[in-house]
């Protein structure tokens, strides 16, 4: 693709709220960097072990922090006696909830956490007291000397228990009893849709919780300076939000707090909240005047959690004989655990993206999130959408069978058209799902295999879509979501500053490649400074698959502004019109006479001599949402990625063990920035999806005070090399006008279709339905036994509880004359 074409495609609609950009130089030439496979800019540091993760940092006189965590699932704190701990040799400070009167939380509507619990504990592992000591051993020994008296309350064990038991309340806020959030949205009359359908089908599904399991345990180090400034290094995906939380809880001006996100040793959403331990070490550094470090144990990482919400779902869809959907009604009940976290957003997400794959003229969503006495749930890769995607895609598989049509062909006939608005006002831009389905169908030999393989072997197909960044920030504001600063050195090097956070997905590299492409220099001549609230402009963080699109657009703007400055001076020197200049190969030259040119460094020197230091900024704000109804904030995105997946399975009817030899996956990434990194994200997503499909579960002993069953890497089963399948990846590039060079997300979307594809393949293999994730051998065997007895060969939930749903928000869809507002909504 030429640079000129990319320019119009790269921003037209996504930039509506940004000032128009200068586009002085537009030589048409093939991309030198974009779309190719590259080494990541931090690859050498990663393979030599020189990357400094948070726990690799150490400072003179550093103290070690340990947290005392609740042994009770639900209890009032009657008293805490820290006197013996304080007297222990080596102990420098002990803090309790009294030291942290101000609550915090990632969402403004859920400021329900305290750095240490002041009066009540809400799950086993809730932090109650903190010790700083001269050694980890002394800190650990001090924890044993802290006496906490609890008055136990009845624990709420799961979401249905929470619905059935409004008392005792876990929190004193929320929509009803122990129900945190209730949502009821209606886009058109779904009952009318069901009335005109040829087939109406209802199904129930359950998706068990799972956790991120990053290989790096959370760690943070705080340093307090006597000039009243605190610096926190932390393994966080969201330094900006940690900055805000620290300012609030510590009552310090943000200008006196510096948060530095160390490269994350895996995040997957698990390091996206501001955490108790980050605030505690900052406070301990303030109290002791010494550096303080904490590294969580693996067991504690399970208590921090914020992973996949266990979700019960009910879906009802009406369809015409040809597979066209006439209406869909979806209900979800999420087990939120002990705190709000991102949960309100997670709940909306369980109902938001059903509409962006298959045309759905009428849609109703009811969602509820319950508080329970378990580790808080939040955003894990796919955030709130893998559960409903599992339900929808297995439901579609059952419908196709009932209609007697091929599930791939049925989907192809009902695809949402590109450049369209859905019933719930999501604006779909580029839409490559059709191409994705065709790729995996052809590549897997679907037509020769589906319903044709011998007993015990089967194939299953599923599709999905995901956002390329959320349209709205976590807290309401009108500022950009991503900012980039760029500095050209007279030696020819360029430094890019951005608040984005490298979590292994390659965000540092994306900044370098994009700037290198625009300025025509080598990516390795670019220094990238990221995730430092003192040095870098705000980027909201590495979540919601937002970074490539948002920082990418901001980087393009900054780089093009720099190029425009440089072009003026190169043009004068070369006596060539600026529009005729090309930037490539470390040179600035006449596109019509490439011999006529200057070195990049020389060009910078000309500009610097004439104008002073060469520096620019760029920023990005997503387009406004099409919907304005209450709840319209979750789901809109500048661009949607699409994936299709075929899984082949081998099921042992004697043991119920499911083996997955191969997964074929096609992903519409819009445009690759670095093809090798895109492939890596697809393979990693398939891996994580396979783990969720077959084995991963965040399970508790509900009858024994809600104790976590398996808070260890040994017992929490995740795929090793021996379980991982072969992956055949197809990249589909359907460029989106809102993406940088047309790019959309890839870090999360390809996970989504794996679980339903595996479940559908198990049905194809042995004719039983496991309508639950994970699809464990026990469940497969149970379903096979039921089938053997002549019963329905199915394992899965049997009912959805009565929920006190509120009066629905009624929003007429666009084709019924709607304008994105709810009925009765004020202008």
């Amino acid at each position, binding site marked *: 693709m030429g640079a000129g074409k990319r320019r119009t495609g790269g921003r037209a609609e996504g930039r509506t709220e940004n000032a128009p950009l200068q586009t002085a130089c537009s030589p048409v030439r093939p991309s030198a960097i974009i779309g190719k496979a590259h080494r990541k800019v931090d690859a050498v540091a990663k*393979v030599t072990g020189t990357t400094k993760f948070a726990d690799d940092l150490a400072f003179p006189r550093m103290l070690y922090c340990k947290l005392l965590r609740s042994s009770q699932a639900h209890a009032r704190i009657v008293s805490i006696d820290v006197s013996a701990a304080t007297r222990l040799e080596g102990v420098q400070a002990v803090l309790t909830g009294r030291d942290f009167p101000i609550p915090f939380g990632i969402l403004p509507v859920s400021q329900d956490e305290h750095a240490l619990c002041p009066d009540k504990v809400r799950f086993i592992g809730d932090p109650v007291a903190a010790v700083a000591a001269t050694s980890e051993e002394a800190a650990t020994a001090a924890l044993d000397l802290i006496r906490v008296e609890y008055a136990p309350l009845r624990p709420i064990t799961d979401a249905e228990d929470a619905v059935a038991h409004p008392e005792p309340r876990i929190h004193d806020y929320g929509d009803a009893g122990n129900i945190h959030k209730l949502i009821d949205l209606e886009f058109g009359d779904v009952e009318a849709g069901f009335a005109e359908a040829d087939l109406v089908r209802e199904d129930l599904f359950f998706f068990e919780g799972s956790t991120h399991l990053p*290989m790096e345990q959370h760690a943070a180090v705080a340093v307090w300076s006597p000039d009243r400034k605190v610096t926190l290094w932390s393994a966080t995906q969201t330094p900006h939000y940690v900055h805000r939380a620290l300012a609030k809880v510590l009552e310090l001006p943000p200008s006196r707090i510096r948060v530095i996100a160390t490269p994350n*040793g*895996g995040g997957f959403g698990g390091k996206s909240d501001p955490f108790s331990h980050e605030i505690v070490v900052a406070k301990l550094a303030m109290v002791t005047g010494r550096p303080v470090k904490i590294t969580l144990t*693996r067991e504690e990482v399970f208590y921090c959690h914020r992973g996949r919400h266990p979700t019960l779902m009910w879906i009802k869809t009406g369809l015409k004989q040809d597979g066209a959907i006439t209406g869909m009604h979806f209900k979800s009940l999420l087990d939120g655990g002990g705190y709000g976290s991102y949960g309100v957003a997670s709940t909306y997400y369980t109902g938001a993206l059903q509409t962006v794959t298959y045309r759905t003229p009428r849609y109703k969503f009811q969602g509820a999130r319950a508080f329970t006495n378990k580790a808080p749930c939040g955003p894990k890769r796919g955030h709130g959408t893998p559960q409903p995607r599992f339900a929808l895609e297995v439901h579609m598989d059952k419908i196709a069978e009932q209609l007697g049509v091929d599930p791939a062909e049925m989907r192809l006939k009902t695809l949402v058209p590109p450049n369209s608005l859905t019933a719930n006002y999501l604006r779909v831009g580029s839409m490559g799902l059709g191409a994705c389905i065709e790729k995996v169908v052809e590549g897997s030999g679907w037509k020769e295999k589906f319903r044709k393989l011998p007993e015990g072997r089967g194939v299953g197909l599923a599709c999905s879509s995901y956002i390329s960044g959320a349209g709205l920030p976590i807290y309401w504001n009108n500022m950009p979501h991503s900012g980039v600063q760029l500095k050209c050195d007279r030696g020819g090097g360029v430094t890019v500053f951005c608040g984005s956070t490298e979590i292994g997905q390659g965000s540092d590299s994306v900044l370098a490649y994009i700037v290198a492409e625009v300025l025509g220099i080598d990516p390795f001549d670019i220094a990238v400074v990221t995730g430092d609230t003192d040095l870098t402009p705000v980027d909201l963080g590495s979540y919601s698959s937002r970074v490539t699109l948002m920082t990418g657009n901001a980087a393009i703007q900054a780089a093009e502004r720099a190029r425009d400055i440089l072009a003026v001076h190169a043009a004068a020197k070369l006596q060539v019109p600026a529009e005729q200049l090309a930037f490539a190969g470390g040179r600035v030259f006449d596109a019509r006479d490439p011999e006529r040119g200057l070195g990049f460094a020389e060009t910078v020197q000309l500009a610097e001599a004439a104008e002073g230091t060469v520096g620019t900024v760029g920023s990005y704000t997503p387009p406004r949402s099409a919907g304005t109804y209450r709840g319209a904030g979750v789901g809109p995105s500048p661009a949607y990625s699409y994936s299709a997946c075929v899984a082949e399975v081998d099921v042992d009817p004697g043991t119920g063990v499911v083996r997955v030899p191969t997964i074929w996956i096609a992903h519409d990434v819009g445009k690759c920035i670095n093809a090798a990194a895109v492939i*890596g994200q697809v*393979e990693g997503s398939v891996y994580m999806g396979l783990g969720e499909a077959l084995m991963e579960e965040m399970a508790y002993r509900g009858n024994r005070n809600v104790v976590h069953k398996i808070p260890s*890497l040994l017992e929490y089963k995740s795929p090793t*090399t021996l379980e991982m399948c072969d992956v*055949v990846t197809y990249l589909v590039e359907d460029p989106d006008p809102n993406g940088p060079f047309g790019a959309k997300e890839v870090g999360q979307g390809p996970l989504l279709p794996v679980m339903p594809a595996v479940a559908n393949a198990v049905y194809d293999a042995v004719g039983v339905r496991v309508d639950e994730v994970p699809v464990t051998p026990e469940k497969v065997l149970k379903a096979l036994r039921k089938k053997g007895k002549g019963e329905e060969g199915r394992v899965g939930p049997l009912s959805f509880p009565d929920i006190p749903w509120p009066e629905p928000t009624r929003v007429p869809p666009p084709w019924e004359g709607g304008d994105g507002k709810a009925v009765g909504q004020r202008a």
Partner: protein
Amino acid sequence: MVTIALEVNGEPTEVAFAPHKTLLEVLREDLGLTGTKHGCELGECGTCTVLLDGTPVLSCLVLGLACANHAVKTVEGMALGGRLHPLQETFADLGAAQCGYCTPAFLLAAEALLAENPNPTRDEIKDALAGNLCRCTGYIKIYEAVELAAAHLRGEDARPSEESLYGRR
């Protein structure tokens, strides 16, 4: 405190530490070799793998004291004279390191495999790396990097496949 003599990355080294410390702690805290990581400190994840006399061990389960007069190799010892080891080159080129946290352990486990078996099959690679967890890559780029480095170490002029970098067309 105890003091032991051992070889670390080819150099004779003396180090003093509290006797209860694991090799992992001695490496990271007393020798400043933070390239060796940890994911559980319970012997479950393989992230702290180092080579002890050429054999992969979980450094969180080995006492520092037990390493007296033995040879330890960590990731810091892989690149020699400012040149990356062939495994490091291929891990970097293929994106076999994403977050990079488990990478040092995989590199060392792979180095031990290739020292014994210069031409391993895909299944032999899977077996050799089955004790190391990676949450980012799905292992595939790691297998491909090991295979490519093995070819380079055998003196072959191998390149990454088109499919491995761009997907199947």
